[in-house]
């Protein structure tokens, strides 16, 4: 039950509804489970944002890899 897609919050309506962009595709999603602001990224599952995404940590994934890789090379 775990398909989830990242999306950017474009607009927040009352009743915890947000308009988000999945990449050339906008849709309304429920924001009941997260506290977000316009411009932030969320992960959307079954029509609900289930967590905020940090762009920095996204970039950090690559960074982690680079560390792992570098560590390997050192071995």
């Amino acid at each position, binding site marked *: *039950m*775990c*398909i*989830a897609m990242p999306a950017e919050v474009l607009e927040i309506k009352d009743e915890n509804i947000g308009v988000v962009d999945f990449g050339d595709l906008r849709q309304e999603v*429920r924001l*009941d*489970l*997260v*506290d977000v602001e316009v411009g932030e990224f969320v*992960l959307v*599952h*079954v*029509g*609900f944002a*289930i*967590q905020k*995404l*940090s*762009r920095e*940590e*996204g970039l*950090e*994934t*690559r960074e*982690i*890899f680079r560390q*792992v*890789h570098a*560590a*390997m090379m050192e071995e």
Partner: protein
Amino acid sequence: MPVSKDILDTLDSLVDSDLCIMHICGTHEAAIARAGIRSILPERLKIVMGPGCPVCITPQGEIDAAIDLVEKDCVIATYGDLLRVPGSNGSLESSGGDVRVVQGVHKAVEIARREPEKEVVFISVGFETTAPTVAATILTNPPENFSILSCHRLVPPAMEWLLSQGEAKLHGFMLPGHVCTVMGYHEYEQFPVPQVVAGFEPEDILLGLVMLVKQIREGKARIDNAYPRAVCREGNRKAQALMYDVFEPCDVEWRGFPVIPGSGLRLKPEFEQYDAQKKFDIEIRHVDKHSACICDRVLRGIAQPSDCKLFGKACTPRTPVGPCMVSHEGACKIWHLYESRRV
């Protein structure tokens, strides 16, 4: 592609013994198959699928209960995944009832509001990723003609049960990234095995494998996080709180497993009016599996689909015998599609 090439090179240089990794997420299986990841892994590194597809682990009795509700003239709202899962006697798709595919539970509530003369039952399956969305919806006070059949499952109790069996030769676990997005991974720290949290892009999975193999080589048993842009140790506390406001753990059967203590979720007494089982007096019966189907062992990681006598013969994607042949992410179906021609 350049990044993944680097990761692959690293992985190649790391794997120098036979290693078997279990993931427990259907979406991981789908991503692995779609990107052809198994075709590029070092030969000695195997990934197998555990009980991670909610369709696969939903026992026949729960499908039968949903079909009982069809016969009570309820409108059934559910995810498309569940449509073709065989119960004892056909599927929701073939039941002839008013079965509607919805994107999420909130859409089922919209149906109930729009059609107040009908009883709308949402068949609520899914792990911790999904349960909070249902909880949040129940807390918005849905109309009287709305209820849910709660078929949720929790991952850690199943993993605990798996590890206590000690049957499978597994060197490490890839934890379900989106379950951990909601729950964090602190609950898994109790398990004395190498673990990694991984995302779902091909690179995420490869990175997770590198980190896990490295940990195994180090002889450690901790949890590494290869999916930090979505997962932190504590998870989404708001979502967790909502989930436990509405649901409480219960003992429940998994397909292929016995009853696992505390591995299910039921509505708390104060939300009883939304419990379709009580409202319509529906019983979830235990159904014995087809004698030769080894789904249970496939799901426990101790057998491969091709070990099953029925695989590709009596049991095919067209004529599925076990649930692993039904779900898009079922090990047997994926094996049938992507592997049988390769061997």
